[in-house]
Structures are given as structure tokens and as C-alpha cells.
């Protein structure tokens, strides 16, 4: 696949490095079926990569939540201040 981050092997077992590099494509469903199967074989044997996969997903979610809490009302008086400068 041209737009993948890393050239994930598709015909021989993948390493922890391959999995780390290809994790986003794996989670986004961008790997070929053969590559996906190899990554899943690796997960079946490597607890460290399974943890990395789960931490990655949790990190994305935490990042979203951490910044979404800034969905706050503007500070008091901001609307008036914005209108004070005229185009």
C-alpha cells in the first residue's frame, strides 16, 4: 500500500518493530488481509505488543478527551471585547 507509514511485510512473520510502525494502519484497517493476518499472529504470541496496541488506543482517546474539556464558554466579557474592534 503506497500511503502506509511503513512497509509491513506480507509474506514472512512480522517483528515488534513492524507492529509498532504499522499500528495506526492496522487500527485504521489500512493493511492488506495478508499483513493483517501476520500482525494478528504476532499479537497472539506477544503480550508486549498487545499492551502497546491497547496503550495506543487509550492514548488517542485520552488526547481527545484532554483537549475536548476546552469546549468551554468564552471568558466573561469576551463577546463585547470581540465587538469592540470593528472591521
Amino acid at each position, binding site marked *: 500500500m503506497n500511503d502506509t*507509514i511503513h512497509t509491513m511485510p506480507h509474506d514472512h512473520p512480522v*517483528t515488534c518493530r513492524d507492529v509498532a510502525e504499522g499500528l495506526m494502519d492496522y487500527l485504521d484497517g489500512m493493511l492488506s488481509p495478508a499483513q493483517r493476518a501476520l500482525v494478528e499472529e504476532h499479537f497472539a504470541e506477544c503480550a*508486549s505488543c498487545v499492551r502497546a496496541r491497547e496503550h*495506543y488506543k487509550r*492514548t488517542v482517546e485520552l488526547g481527545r478527551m484532554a483537549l475536548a474539556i*476546552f469546549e468551554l*464558554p*468564552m471568558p466573561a466579557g469576551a463577546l463585547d471585547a470581540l465587538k469592540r474592534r470593528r*472591521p
Partner: protein
Amino acid sequence: MGEGIADTRAGARVQVDETSLLARVRAGDARAYDDLVDLYSQQLYATAKRMLGSDADALDAVQEALLGAFRNISGFDGRSRLGTWLTRIVINRCLMTLRTRRRKPQRSIEDLLPTFQDDGHPTRWTPVWRPPEAMDQRRLLALVREKIDELPEHYREVLVLRDVQGLSTEETARVLGDSANAVKVRLHRARQALMTLLDPHLEGEDTKQGPPR
């Protein structure tokens, strides 16, 4: 274009006749500027605040974006919602601010990426993280926010645009003037780096593991 929907204060949603507002802005009606501020400043502020962190900088970005949009309304081609167009403008403003702001020396992303031995094994096994329920959520999110701020700027901006602002890879690439592939690589690196920064804080006390070999 029919009726638009804009967020206003306190999350209330009101129907806005975008067509008539646009006509008034195009006619240079000064009161139309006030309506733009009323209708769009809250959602633009939320975007700017996420990108810049500081209230004052976020409000400056909103001010400049709204003034710029009002003066250059001819640049709005009507193919998107007015709110979407304004959001793009405020994102560009924020990017300019981020790029002129050299708050502190940028750390290298390389220092924050996982490292591997020649055979592809990691130099350190992935630690076990404490489960979410074992942590105070507010403190955790404040920590995550702090760590996002520690990411090198080019990586932080991609993370914010893609993961928080919800822009597509292609849209992020257009805003940043980069290729879609560059955006993907940077997003992946940004997430990996954030994970590394969170590691020492989320690692379970009794589950630390040394190097695999």
C-alpha cells in the same frame, strides 16, 4: 445554501439564516459583524483554545479570523458552511501563532519514539498501565494536556487537527501545506510520543519490567 446551524454560548443551538447573514456581510453592514461574532465566536474560540491553550491567544485568533473573514468575504465560495470556512480561517491563524511562538526549545521526537534492537525486538517491553478506574480522571486529563504541550509543535498541531478537531488526513494536509503521507506519519509519531510521555505516569507500580535482554 439554506439555514445554517451555529453553536452559541452555553451550547445552545440556534437556526441562523446563513444566506441573509452572508448578504449583509457582503454589503458591508457593520451590524452583520456583530451577528458573526454572536453566532460563531464560541465555536471558533473552542477550536483556538484547543490549539493554543491560552485564553488571550485564543481570543486574538478569533478576533483576527472574524475581522479577516468579514473583510474578505468574497473569498467564501459557498461550497462549505460558513462555520466550516470560518473554522479553517481560525485554524490558520492559530498555526501562524504557533509558528511564531517559540516558547521553549523543541525536543526531538526521536527521543520519544519506541526503540528496537537489530532483530526487531523492543529495547524495553511495553509496561502494564494502571486501569482507567484506578486513576482520578480529572487529574489524568490535566496530565495528558500537559504532555500534549510537551510534544514538538509540528507533531502537536497534527494531533490536534486530526484527533481533536476531527479534520481528515487530506484536509489536515491542505491546511498544513503537507502531503497526506507526511500527515499520517506525523500523527502516528505524535501518538507514539504521547504514549511514551504518559508511560511513567500510568505504569503500574508492581509491574515495571526491565529490558527484554
